[in-house]
């Protein structure tokens, strides 16, 4: 049976939990990446290498790479720059990573922009078409900064990529990054009066349905949404049983396009923790028409837990394993698709990112 690894990003470095095939016992390694703040971790499909996105307050942004399962690491930011023009706009940190069907590695950064690498993250080039979008002068940051936090490449067409920027919204390119179009129609921006804007929506996370590239699900500052046309139009799902419109993470099932998970949190003005201080992960199996609560094993009283946008992940086993990490350093795992939960470890730093990896 395959082993499962959990990759965890924190402000005090990356951590790796090596699990047994039953996903019950985990051993912790870290902090890795020299203790750098790590916002995202992925595995490069072709090589199995781990890539970690980060930025040091002292030494700037970089993408780390390990080809031996996290034992040794290299790092690079070659080309990861907007250049020296106009006094230079330093890139603070790398926030997000993804790989396209042609092996391209994408990196989203703060301040918001997209870079790509054709050599596994060793050198980078700026996707200028997004930075030069006509709406750019109106882009405003969310509380986490002006960040490109979500990258969703099309699974077979390397010319198509969707990105999410806070608090700007979703964009899509269909020509390999040369031009981009907003994909925010139908998404509310309750914090702005007047008619629905073209951009300015506060997307928190979105993900693609399994085997349905035109079906996207979104967790927004203002609700949960579904699109069945690649983001051209979104349908509001937030009155379908979830206890709050607000939340950060959203993950989709690896095989069932109708299933995804979210973690609703109270509104920002109310503290951003799990409603009623009662921990739960919510699952839909009908594309967001209804949601059910999964809380067995999770604390149901006095649980003022918050989960950030990249801090929930699923593996590809059957049944699917779901893992989430909290701002207070607890890592919870379910090996039955979110029905029941066990605490993996409780004393990590604030958890920014979780990725689950199945290794044969």
């Amino acid at each position, binding site marked *: 049976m395959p082993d499962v690894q959990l990759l965890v990003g924190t*402000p005090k470095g990356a951590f790796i939990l090596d699990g047994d095939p039953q996903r019950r016992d985990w051993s912790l390694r870290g902090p890795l990446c*020299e203790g750098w*703040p790590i916002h995202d971790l992925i595995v490069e499909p072709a090589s199995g290498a781990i890539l970690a996105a980060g*930025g*040091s*307050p*002292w*030494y*700037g942004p*970089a993408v780390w790479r390990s080809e031996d399962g996290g034992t040794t690491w290299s*790092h*690079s*930011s*070659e080309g990861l*720059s*907007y*250049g*020296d023009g*106009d*006094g*230079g*706009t*330093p*890139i*603070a*940190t790398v926030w997000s990573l993804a790989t396209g069907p042609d092996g391209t590695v994408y990196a989203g950064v*703060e*301040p*918001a922009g997209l870079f790509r690498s054709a050599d596994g993250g060793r050198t980078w080039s700026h996707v200028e078409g997004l930075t030069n979008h006509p709406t*750019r*002068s109106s*882009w*405003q*940051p*969310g*509380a*986490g*900064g*002006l*960040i490109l936090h979500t990258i969703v490449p099309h699974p077979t067409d390397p010319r198509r990529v969707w990105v999410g920027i*806070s*608090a700007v919204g979703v964009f899509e390119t269909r020509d390999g990054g040369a031009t981009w179009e907003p994909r925010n129609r139908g998404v509310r921006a309750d914090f702005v009066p007047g008619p629905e804007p073209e951009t300015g929506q*506060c997307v*928190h996370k979105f993900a693609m349905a399994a085997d349905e590239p035109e079906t996207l699900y979104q967790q927004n*500052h203002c609700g949960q949404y579904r699109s069945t046309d690649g983001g051209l139009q979104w349908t509001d799902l937030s009155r379908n049983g979830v206890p709050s419109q607000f939340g*950060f993470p959203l993950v989709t099932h690896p095989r069932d396009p109708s299933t995804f998970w979210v973690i609703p949190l109270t509104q*920002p003005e109310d503290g*951003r923790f799990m409603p009623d201080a009662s921990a739960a992960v919510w699952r839909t199996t009908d594309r967001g028409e209804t949601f059910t609560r999964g809380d067995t094993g999770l604390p149901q009283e006095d649980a003022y837990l*918050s989960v*950030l*946008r990249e801090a929930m992940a699923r593996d590809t086993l059957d049944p699917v394993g779901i893992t989430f990490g909290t*701002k207070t350093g607890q890592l919870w795992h379910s090996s039955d698709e979110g029905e029941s939960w066990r605490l993996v470890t409780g004393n990590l730093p*604030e958890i*920014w990112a979780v990725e689950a990896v199945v290794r044969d």
Partner: protein
Amino acid sequence: MATVLLPRSLLALFPGAERRNELAGDDVDSLITALDATTPGIRDRLVEEGPRLRRHINVFVDGQPADLSTPVGPTATVHVIPAVSGGEQRPAAWRTLAPWTGSPRGGSEES
């Protein structure tokens, strides 16, 4: 040749790099360029767009605060030291703003 002393946390990023380096250069910028020739990538860790020294990297030439353009004599001692101010969990105090936004960067993962 100037003597350039590098901090532990920077050396940890470049296996084989030495704390003490004897380098030729007229100013701090040229010394860092010389350092990058023997340790590729190290300039990116010390210098940000502008170009200028990263906000939380302090350089001293013979004990005096320096920037990239500070002249360096042939017998100078140059210390590269991470600033105490870099200890924030999130780099909320980075000085520059995106040129297309008038708002400061946030200090939290949340938005």
